[in-house]
């Protein structure tokens, strides 16, 4: 999987093989106690836990220019008081475009630029869509998502399903989302018109310097029959959602100085009370992240596109 990323996108030593361009943040999560009915994880108890995280753009190119259509991600590490950790990587898309790692790999290869034309081969792309109709459907949903102007106003989704177990041993399948409390501010959006190559990150930096940003962690509970092993399929919109707490992000720093650069946001680093579902993508993500981590940690680091000078502004 990681070889395919490097083959198609080229290797960019020292950087993540996907979601390469990013910036690190710090803050805290305040559980409101509502989540304890679903999971016995310490993070859902009433109280505050420190969080370190990273906002990034999908793609392997660490110096790519920001673009509105690029998938944006939020990765978080919650440090629980008993020494446990919860790590999660979320995206601002409603579903994941692939059911399995094999599909993801197939699409990377099918969409690779043809060496003679410099653009992807349409015949290969069509063959891929025919072979994996669920992926084509998911791409449709992703294209038609309601766009938000930047990271601050994005809702970030877990995409994969997880299994929560509460103190009584009762299990439920869930997906979660980070839903922003801040709404787009027309004045800022105009002031930071998409001119610079880091305009999305610059807007995020400016917002955090103005005031802490907040998201509500909303947990959606599956009903019997909802797909727990297929991240390309959305769950019906009427599923019960529980607001389990608030994430506050109040500090931002460059990858050049943040410890978050050397953290693998493996979605299967889970505290007791949270576990993987039967979604095959989870184990594949864990494996690929680990491989990407091992490779980049051994490589010489180049400066991040988002420098300390930029995050300090």
């Amino acid at each position: 999987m990681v070889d395919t990323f490097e083959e198609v996108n080229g290797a960019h030593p020292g950087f993540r093989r996907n979601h390469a361009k990013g910036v690190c943040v710090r803050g805290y999560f305040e559980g409101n106690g509502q989540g304890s009915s679903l999971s016995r994880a310490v993070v859902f108890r009433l109280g505050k836990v420190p969080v370190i995280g990273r906002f990034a753009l999908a793609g392997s190119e660490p110096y790519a220019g920001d673009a509105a259509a690029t998938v944006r991600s939020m990765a978080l590490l919650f440090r629980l008081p008993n020494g446990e950790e919860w790590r999660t990587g979320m995206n601002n898309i409603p579903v994941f475009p692939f059911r399995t790692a094999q599909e993801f790999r197939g699409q990377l290869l099918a969409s690779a630029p043809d060496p003679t034309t410099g653009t992807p081969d349409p015949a290969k792309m069509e063959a891929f869509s025919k072979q994996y109709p669920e992926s084509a459907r998911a791409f449709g949903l992703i294209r038609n998502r309601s766009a938000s102007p930047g990271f601050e106003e994005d809702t970030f989704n877990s995409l994969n399903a997880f299994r929560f177990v509460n103190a009584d041993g009762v299990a439920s399948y869930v997906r979660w989302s980070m839903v922003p409390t801040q709404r787009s501010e027309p004045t800022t959006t105009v002031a930071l018109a998409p001119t610079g190559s880091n305009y999305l990150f610059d807007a995020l930096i400016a917002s955090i310097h103005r005031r802490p940003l907040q998201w509500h962690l909303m947990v959606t509970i599956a009903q019997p029959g909802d797909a727990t092993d297929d991240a390309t399929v959305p769950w019906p919109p009427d599923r019960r959602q529980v607001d389990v707490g608030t994430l506050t992000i109040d500090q931002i720093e460059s990858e050049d100085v943040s410890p978050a650069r050397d953290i693998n946001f493996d979605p299967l680093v889970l505290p007791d009370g949270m576990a993987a579902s039967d979604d095959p993508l989870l184990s594949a993500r864990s494996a690929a992240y680990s491989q990407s981590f091992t490779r980049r940690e051994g490589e010489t680091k180049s400066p991040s596109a988002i420098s300390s000078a930029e995050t300090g502004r």
Partner: protein
Amino acid sequence: MATPRERTKFAIQSRVLHWLMAVMILTMLFIGVGMVASLDHYHALVAIHRPLGILILILAAIRLVNRRLTTLPPFPPTMAPWERSAASASERLLYALMIALPLVGWAMLSAGHYPIVMAGSLHLPPILPASPTLYTILRHTHTILAFVLFATVLAHAAGVLFHTLVVRDRLLNRMALWPIRPQTRHVSDAAAFEDSK
């Protein structure tokens, strides 16, 4: 613990530990190889690999103490002096690897900023600070040591099997959990042949 007669076998707890760990270490080596090659089963395999490694570390420490406290059976006269030194050296190497591999794994996860999860909320503290350089070195060391361990296990098994099956000196009996039928080549083989008629 020492018996009045000279030992012909390892002490019972030594034999139990030996075979228990043999199964665990072989399982561990195959899980390790499968883990790095698999996407779909990666998580399930890693979840076994970590606590099993720590269990091997604990058992290896117990075994090391047990070895000091018990008397060992002597080598059979069929073993040449060079074979005896090779056997002792490979045993020392096996002990070193049984202890080093889990420690390197634990240190590697610590340096990689990973939580060292055993099961549920049970986890171990880091034994090294987070460091990309240390992580990379230890990650590669872990793989190299695993291959050395696999080679040493094979050499150890090959030596014992050669003696047991080719030299027929019943070397395996020293470690066997239950008595193996005496390997008498002349008289009783003929008797067995007579019996089966």
